[in-house]
């Protein structure tokens, strides 16, 4: 089977670097715009919840940051696996770039969940709640991945060893996702993707989904910017990098 041309192009660092240059203004611009619209909608326009009152406004950032953390992990694990199997430098660069962003968003999910838990459940932190525990594990997987990278001087070796950790840790993702169905949890069950449609009225669902899109676009914007830096570092003193800096790139 002949692979399409774009497939080969995606393995080429200069091509991906310039593609990222073209995509970033759109991802960043649209992402930030939607973040502002979604935050205004969620904080001002959307009604308070009939049970939880105004604390429910955290629903426009908490599930979204948690989902970005999980998506970042999946991106990292898939990229690391591709890099490991096909020895593709660029794939390893994607994995490394996703890790710190995922760690920050997972931290954010834990924090926003904590301050939502206080008025709703009466506690900031519930030891033993499966979703909280596995979400905390997700943060430690990111931090462990980054710490393990730091332990190697040789980049290729770091890529290969950390790829194994990234791939093994991916089992945690379905566990976080299904934890509320498999075990008793003080977390609520699925709200959006459930039998019978979303358990949310449109005046809350619309800002909820705007924020999902906003955080997704923002994540890929950050990922591509970090990937660009990673590509430059990995390509070192090559001809296209020299041409790039000679063009007066910022």
């Amino acid at each position, binding site marked *: 089977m002949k692979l399409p041309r774009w497939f080969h192009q995606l393995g080429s660092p200069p091509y991906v670097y310039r593609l990222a240059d073209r995509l970033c203004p759109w991802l*960043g611009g649209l992402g930030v715009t939607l*973040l502002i619209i979604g*935050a205004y909608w969620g*904080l*001002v326009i959307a009604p*308070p919840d009939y049970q939880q*009152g*105004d*604390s429910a*406004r*955290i629903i426009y*950032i*908490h599930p979204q*940051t948690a989902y970005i953390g999980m998506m970042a992990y999946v991106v990292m694990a898939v990229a690391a696996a591709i890099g490991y199997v096909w020895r593709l430098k660029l794939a390893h660069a994607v994995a490394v770039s996703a890790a*710190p*962003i995922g760690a*920050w*968003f997972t*931290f*954010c999910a834990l*924090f*926003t969940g904590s*301050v*939502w838990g*206080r*008025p709703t459940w009466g506690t900031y932190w519930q030891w033993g709640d499966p979703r909280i525990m596995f979400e905390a594990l997700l943060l430690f997987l990111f931090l462990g991945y980054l710490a393990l990278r730091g332990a190697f001087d040789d980049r290729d070796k770091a890529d290969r060893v950390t790829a194994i950790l990234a791939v093994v840790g991916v089992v945690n993702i379905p566990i976080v996702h299904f934890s509320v169905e498999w075990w008793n949890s003080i977390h609520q069950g699925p709200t959006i993707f459930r039998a019978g449609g979303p358990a949310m009225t449109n005046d809350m669902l619309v800002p909820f989904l705007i924020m999902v899109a906003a955080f997704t676009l*923002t994540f890929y914007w*950050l990922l591509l*910017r*970090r990937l*660009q*830096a*990673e590509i*430059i*570092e990995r390509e*070192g*003193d090559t001809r296209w*990098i*020299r041409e*790039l*800096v*000679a063009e*007066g*790139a*910022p």
Partner: protein
Amino acid sequence: MTEFFLMNGHGAYVWSAYGITLVVLILNAWLARAKHRSALQRARELAAQAEVPRKQPTVKRLQ
């Protein structure tokens, strides 16, 4: 207006959640940008080291 910020007693929770998220977003944008800039700077230095004798004008334009 005050009522809006108090959020019926939930203000501290809601605003700290949104505040930390905003800080994390800004920090991440700054970190990504800083990393990109330092990588470019290093590439510039490498290129300059390699080309100083031959291509003086290129080096000059970059500074």
